[in-house]
């Protein structure tokens, strides 16, 4: 893909339109990127694209899905390495966030009663279809492993209770096997759209999302597992947070014109806050979380919140980039002109 230059900021004296836009700086939220008039024309400044119809449920799912995947990984590791406290927290976390994810996904449908239609086809061209089948593969393992942790003590001795505990390990491993898919496919889900801010970020977004999943998984483990067993959670949190922060910065810098969607407005504020929290959580994980339960909980919560805000920030950037026709027209126009296909006339 062509590396594009940063858009020129407008210094053209005659640009009344740009002046008008910059007036609306009330909340700083819906300022329009500044574009020289000669390069941008539109139909009444109306969007070219339809803004996503998804509401808060989808970014929330991006978070809960990532959390579930991160937790599933931790759960399987804790199981294999004999950390029952961490295992229990992680498996329950994976199950809980999976249930939340299912709810969010179904509730966001225009026709929730038709959610099973998702299983009609298996379309490699549709990340949502691919994701559905990944979740189909991931879900039973995560559910079984989580359920095993939740069996009340009086039922543990029963035949089903024993069966469940026996099945927990393979189930947890199965979940861990599909968890990377769960953590990463959502990035493709967003990128594989015409939404400029998401589409243009298709190289970086998977890293932001898996990083965010790791950080949230780690954070969750830090909050709920005993400090003594939470070492892997802290390390996962630190590694994930680092990856998320680095990838997130790359999104800001590498996207060209669409990058403005991330560096301005509400998306910018959400992601900046996310970065602070993630950074703080990571620092905490590497320091006070090892010593104090409170410190661990605080750091874990910071990582969780940072991860969630990152998802909302990314989501918001995409939505904004569809509301403003510049994100569609300017890069496409530049591309046409660079390849000599532009037919602009005086």
């Amino acid at each position, binding site marked *: 893909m062509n590396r594009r230059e940063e858009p020129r900021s407008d210094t053209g004296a005659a640009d009344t339109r740009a002046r008008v836009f910059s007036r609306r700086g009330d909340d700083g939220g819906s300022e329009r990127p500044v574009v020289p008039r000669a390069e941008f024309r539109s139909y009444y400044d109306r969007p070219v694209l339809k803004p996503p119809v998804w509401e808060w449920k989808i970014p929330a799912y991006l978070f809960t899905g990532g959390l579930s995947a991160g937790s599933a990984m931790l759960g399987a590791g804790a199981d294999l390495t004999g950390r029952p406290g961490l295992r229990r927290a992680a498996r329950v976390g994976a199950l809980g966030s999976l249930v939340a994810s299912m709810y969010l996904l179904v509730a966001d449908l225009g026709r929730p009663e038709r959610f099973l239609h998702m*299983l*009609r*086809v*298996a*379309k*490699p061209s549709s990340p949502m*279809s691919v994701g559905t089948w990944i979740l189909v593969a991931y879900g039973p393992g995560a559910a079984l492993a989580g359920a095993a942790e939740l069996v009340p003590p009086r039922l543990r001795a029963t035949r089903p209770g024993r069966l469940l505990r026996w099945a927990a390990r393979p189930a947890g491993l199965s979940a861990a096997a599909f968890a990377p898919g769960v953590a990463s496919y959502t990035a493709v889900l967003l990128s594989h759209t015409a939404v400029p801010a998401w589409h243009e970020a298709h190289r970086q977004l998977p890293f932001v999302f898996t990083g965010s999943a790791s950080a949230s998984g780690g954070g969750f483990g830090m909050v709920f597992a005993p400090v003594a067993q939470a070492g892997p959670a802290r390390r996962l949190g630190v590694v994930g947070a680092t990856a998320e922060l680095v990838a997130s910065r790359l999104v800001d810098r590498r996207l060209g014109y669409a990058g403005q969607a991330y560096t301005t407005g509400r998306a910018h504020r959400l992601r900046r806050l996310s970065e602070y929290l993630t950074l703080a959580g990571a620092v905490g994980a590497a320091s006070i979380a090892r010593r104090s339960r409170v410190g661990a909980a605080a750091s874990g919560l910071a990582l969780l919140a940072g991860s969630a805000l990152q998802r909302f920030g990314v989501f918001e950037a995409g939505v904004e980039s569809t509301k403003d026709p510049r994100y569609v027209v300017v890069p496409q126009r530049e591309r046409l002109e660079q390849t000599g296909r532009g037919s602009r006339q005086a």
Partner: protein
Amino acid sequence: MGVGDWVRSWPVYRQLTGTDRLGRGAAARSRRSAELTPRTASADRVVGSVCPFCAVGCAQKVYVKDERVIQIEGNPDSPISRGRLCPKGSASKQLVTGPQRQEHVLYRAPYASEWQRLDLDTAMDMVAERVLDARRRGWQDRDEQGRTLRRTMGLAGLGGATLDNEENHLVKKLFTALGAVQIENQARI
């Protein structure tokens, strides 16, 4: 439907076994789509008509099913319109089937602030009475110079440009027989 049929109707199965591996076409087609036909195909009859809006006189085909109009569109045979219709002509179905159509006689009594329903026959009787009364009160036999007038100035009419020729003929004929001359229509406006 047996399990086998059910599985065979599952698009994923059709993807795996058919020509549409990617599930973007033939395999994804639903039963409804496979059986789809235009609703005009099920019309009981198709009736030739003419658009009721402007005077270009575009020909329309009215599709009727179960005594309801289910579609109105242009008649391509017409040398005037060649099957085309403007937005108003295209909205003819909504014009004739929409909820704005009144179905009942309504009556507003003197000094009343609301409508009331009235039986059609009663209303016709009332109108007939009032026509004769207005005719009588407005009657003029002769002008001041004694020339024949033989008319009534007590009642008037407005309308006709949206009516049929046959209807206008009866309107004019009846008004004339009543001695009423003040009948006018949009052609004067």
